[in-house]
């Protein structure tokens, strides 16, 4: 097990190094001088020079890369050019919107998908199964940001149960949660449709195994066998998908934040783009990729714990 974890840690660090190199290179290939790019066409030479020194653009590429990485490791993400505050500070504020949003959506999607997938698998080939599978086809085809707009239309415009967007801050936890509810439903539904389909096919596969016949033969009812034996074994592929979905949810949050005017990481990136604040774009992108790679690592470890066979294979 320790060997397995060390192996995964090695590939995790490799991914992080390559990812950071890619992001650094993309930002580097901007034609011309990043300082001139950030200041726009009408900037005078002295201001550009000052910003160059500010950004530490005087060193070689390798020096700048190492300085950026060393800074990130110590929690110093650079200073935003437009806001004039450390990027870490900007990120910390917005993380408290984006992270709860992603987590809430993940919980919602799992809570919806589990019973639905179970119901479809238990009624395989019957009307309930066909109905559910048809519904999930529709769920997969719906873009989450459009679903968000429909939710606004129904629950904010027509019923007036929710406000159409904005975020009151965590000083009032209940109001904050309420304002995250519609966006997280919008994010969660398409993901729940995918997860329910995976859940169904994983269950159907385990139901065909010999140990399921054994379970029935020793006198368990269909229901007991399904819940006690099939469900546990079907969890491995489901867990994989949940891990993958975290990256979709994080990226999806970037879009959804625009629908609901939430001050999260996504808004921060888009502001960075429109204001040419490359330091913000570079660091926040790296942070998102870091989060996704770490979650993938944790999922790998989680199912090595769940399935001992995987440890040997690696």
């Amino acid at each position, binding site marked *: 097990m320790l060997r397995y974890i060390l192996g995964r840690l090695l590939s995790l660090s490799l991914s992080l190094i390559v990812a950071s190199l890619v992001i650094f290179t993309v930002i580097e290939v901007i034609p011309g001088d990043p300082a001139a790019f950030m200041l726009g066409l009408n900037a005078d030479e002295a201001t550009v020079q000052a910003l160059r020194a500010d950004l530490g653009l005087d060193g070689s590429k390798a020096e700048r890369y190492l300085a950026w990485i060393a800074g990130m490791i110590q929690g110093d993400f650079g200073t935003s050019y437009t806001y004039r505050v450390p990027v870490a500070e900007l990120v910390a504020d917005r993380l408290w919107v984006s992270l709860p949003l992603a987590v809430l959506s993940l919980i919602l999607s799992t809570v919806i998908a589990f019973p639905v997938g179970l119901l479809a698998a238990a009624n395989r080939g019957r009307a309930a199964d066909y109905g559910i599978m048809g519904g999930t086809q529709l769920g997969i085809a*719906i873009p989450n940001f459009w679903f968000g*707009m429909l939710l606004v239309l129904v629950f904010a415009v027509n019923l007036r149960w929710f406000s159409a967007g904005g975020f009151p801050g965590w000083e009032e936890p209940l109001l904050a949660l309420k304002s995250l509810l519609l966006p997280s439903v919008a994010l969660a539904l398409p993901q729940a449709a995918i997860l329910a389909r995976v859940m169904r096919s994983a269950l159907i596969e385990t139901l065909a195994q010999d140990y399921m016949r054994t379970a029935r033969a020793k006198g368990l009812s269909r229901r007991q066998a399904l819940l006690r034996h099939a469900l546990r074994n079907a969890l491995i592929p489901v867990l994989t998908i949940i891990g993958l979905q975290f990256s979709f949810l994080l990226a999806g949050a970037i879009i959804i934040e625009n629908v609901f005017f939430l001050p999260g990481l996504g808004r921060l990136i888009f502001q960075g783009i429109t204001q040419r604040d490359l330091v913000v774009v570079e660091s926040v992108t790296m942070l998102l990729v870091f989060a996704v790679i770490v979650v993938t690592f944790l999922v790998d470890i989680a199912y090595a714990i769940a399935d001992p066979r995987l440890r040997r294979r690696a």
Partner: protein
Amino acid sequence: MSRLPVPLILGAVLSSVFLAMALLSFVWTPHDVEQLVISQRLQPASAEFLLGTDQFGRDLLSMLMVGARVSLAVALVAVGIGVIIGVPLGLAAAATRGSLLDEVIMRGNDLIFAFPSLVIAILITAVFGPSAFNAILAIGIFNIPVFARVARGGALSLWTLDYILAARVAGKGKARISAEHILPNIANLLIVQATIQFSLGILAEAALSYVGLSVQPPTPSWGRMLSDAQTMIYTHPMLAVLPGLAIVLMVLGLNLMGDGLRDMLDPRLRRVRQ
């Protein structure tokens, strides 16, 4: 010959409708979509404007037609990038199984999968500026590992078969065997995957153009129509409903077609289903 599966027919019909709309828009749209006629703004549906007009007086049906063209073109080219680069990589990896080349290709694929695609798309557009070309690039890059993986998986199982051995005994090289014997036999898998990536590409393009990172105005796109409609949602909800419906129906059609094709082309699945 058994009957064609219902989802396949339904999916093919839905996709054809949008394809026809997109093709027609090259030669004819009911109204000019790049001309703003403020006096005709926010018209309800009528004989002249079948679906009404938006806040700039543009005909909604015409915009949906041009939007279909944009979204199909972006997704199609992005799938093309994935096939043209990904499939040869996958074939090469399978032909040299276990080699350094195989290892490098598969590790590289893992890495692209680890990046959230939207984040990279944002990074690309932040640097090179928003345009349809950059949207295609951003979506296309992520199709490469998908097709490489599918091609490699399909090819690996074929390499163990006797007729491939016979081809090797006959003196054919690995590259030639891959092109002449492997590729035609994994075409089914690739076609099914292409349909899936095509529908994912349409969703991705819609998301990118919604946040303004794809095609730029005055060319209309479904995603941009949705972001334009957002401020009008209180008074003119149909402006937000129609482009979204177009996306859903198009993606649904492609997914149904992909599922139907898979059922039809994959005998193993057909057996399991019965």
